[in-house]
């Protein structure tokens, strides 16, 4: 049991953040059962472009082959197991394993084995291509994989989250692209603490007041208590949850605010007019003005506010995680528009921002606090528990995650 509800209190078992056994159980119960985010199609824009990264504790290659088709390969040589690609990114028609020089085409087929004539007769070379995750699917440019051959189709799995990925993808008539430059950092904290933190509106003022001070100083009064128009949290199904709000913060698409350069105002207003023309007034308003923190179970966070930030993370130990995050933006933003958007986003997000370092510090502090899990075994996430419609400063988002976590973890345990 990982969660319990007693007399209007929702409890989470703290041992789940510190135990090596639970961490090991998560590998098969969670990470090997779900869809996991790999990357965005725009990260491999040209034929033969590739990216390597760790997904679900495996080294994988995201690659666009010579015909433009996207593949995800496991980065492991069929021969003796070395990684066949050891660069972070690049452009290559073939991957050459440096160990014994087996060579694979970027569609995964094995193309050459040095000394093949000394292998047994009828050696099944055609079966020795790069292994693949059993499932790879894409939704609106977002590429996911699953190590579970029986996982439901991606769009079905994403369920209610699709609508919010649509709001992102519909920002622009031209494709969105991941900007060059990646935030790669880490925390000495359990991965589930970052899930909780990533859609937690309750901590905003206590933790990030220095950011709000800065925004006020530069012209945007983003005081959360007075300027909210709509601020709700929703259960999107399958463990996905979202906190949604309308804020006076700036957005390159398409909401000018006083903290942005005055000379950008016409371009941003024109961008809004373009949305209205393309999408109709109602949906344009939703696309341009809905700010949200979306949690796609278990580890993709889409932060849509001053810009679109994609954040994913991989645990390496019960008290360690690696974080990777990118910004996603319409490919046709002008230099001035993207400069302003990045500037606004960097004020808050990333290892050098005014907010993310404090989140990291607090989560590490929580991790140290949770060493007392035997004496103080439960955390509380009850805020808004009995409300019909919890808001973004309640704790519904975390309860949705933890209920799904509980379901998947218990599904694996032998029934008594």
């Amino acid at each position, binding site marked *: 049991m990982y969660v319990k509800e007693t007399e209007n209190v929702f409890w989470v078992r703290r041992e789940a953040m510190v135990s090596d056994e639970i961490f090991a159980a998560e590998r098969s119960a969670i990470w090997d059962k779900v869809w996991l985010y790999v990357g965005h199609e725009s990260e491999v824009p040209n034929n033969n472009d590739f990216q390597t990264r760790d997904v679900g504790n495996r080294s994988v290659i995201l690659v666009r082959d010579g015909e433009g088709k996207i593949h995800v390969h496991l980065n492991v040589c069929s021969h003796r197991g070395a990684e066949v690609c050891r660069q*972070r*990114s690049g452009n290559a028609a073939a991957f050459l394993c440096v160990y014994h020089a087996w060579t694979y085409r970027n569609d995964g087929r094995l193309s050459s084995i040095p000394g093949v004539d000394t292998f047994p007769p009828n050696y099944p070379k055609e079966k020795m291509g790069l292994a693949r995750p059993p499932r790879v699917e894409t939704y609106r440019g977002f590429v996911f994989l699953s190590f579970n051959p029986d996982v439901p189709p991606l769009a079905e799995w994403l369920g209610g989250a699709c609508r919010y990925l649509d709001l992102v993808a519909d920002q622009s008539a031209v494709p969105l692209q991941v*900007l*060059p*430059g*990646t*935030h*790669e*950092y*880490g*925390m*000495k904290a359990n991965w589930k603490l970052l899930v909780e933190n990533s859609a937690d509106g309750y901590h905003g003022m206590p*933790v990030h*007041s*220095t*950011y709000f*001070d*800065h925004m006020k*100083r*530069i012209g945007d009064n983003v005081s959360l208590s007075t300027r909210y128009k709509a601020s709700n949290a929703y259960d999107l199904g399958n463990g996905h949850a979202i906190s949604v709000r309308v804020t006076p913060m700036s957005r390159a698409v398409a909401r000018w605010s006083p903290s942005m350069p005055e000379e950008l105002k016409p371009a941003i207003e024109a961008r809004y007019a373009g949305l209205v023309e393309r999408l109709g007034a109602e949906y344009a308003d939703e696309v341009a003005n809905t700010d949200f923190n979306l949690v796609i179970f278990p580890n993709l966070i889409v932060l849509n506010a001053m810009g679109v930030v994609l954040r994913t993370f991989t645990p390496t130990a019960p008290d360690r995680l*690696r*974080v990777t995050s*990118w*910004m996603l933006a319409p490919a046709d*933003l002008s*230099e001035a528009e*993207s*400069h302003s958007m*990045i*500037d606004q986003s*960097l*004020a808050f997000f*990333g*290892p*050098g921002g*005014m907010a*993310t*370092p*404090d989140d*990291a*510090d*607090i989560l*590490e502090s929580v991790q*140290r606090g949770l060493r007392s899990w035997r004496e103080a075994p439960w955390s509380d996430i009850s805020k808004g528990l009995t409300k019909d419609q919890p808001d973004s400063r309640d704790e519904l988002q975390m309860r949705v995650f933890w209920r799904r976590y509980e379901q998947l973890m218990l599904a694996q345990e032998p029934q008594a």
Partner: protein
Amino acid sequence: MSAATIDRATVEDHLFADAQLLDEWRLQEWLETLTQDVRYVIPATDMYEATPAHSHLAIASDDMRMLIGKVERLLSTRGHCEYPFSRTRRLITNVRIVSRRENEIDVAANFIVYRARRSGWYPYVGRYEFTFLVLPDDSLKTKHRAAILDHYDLAENGGVVSILL
């Protein structure tokens, strides 16, 4: 002296004084050493080679407005990651004047910045690219400061760059 004749020892003295201001958390004084049009950059760890364009995601890409915000935050008691203040020690080496213009010089240097917190040591290793404005009294104002980290990523390094590099 002028931009044409200023020597390395003078530049080194300036960098040592700059490091002292930051190590002693005299951040408001440090702001006064910058030009109004300053740019302060820490490139992303996967864009290691060059100063990033404004359309690239960096770790920091700050103008004076942002630096004022960061300094006020760092000096408040609510910048949780740096309160109580980290102890820092900056070692600045391999200082070279790489080019000279009418009233500006470009300077390269290497650095190790050690940051100590209750939870341990966090070193930042890299190189600097500076552009200094050389004033008539031979004092220097920072117009461009890029701290280019050698770290492959920041996952094992405390994760954040919460101090000024």
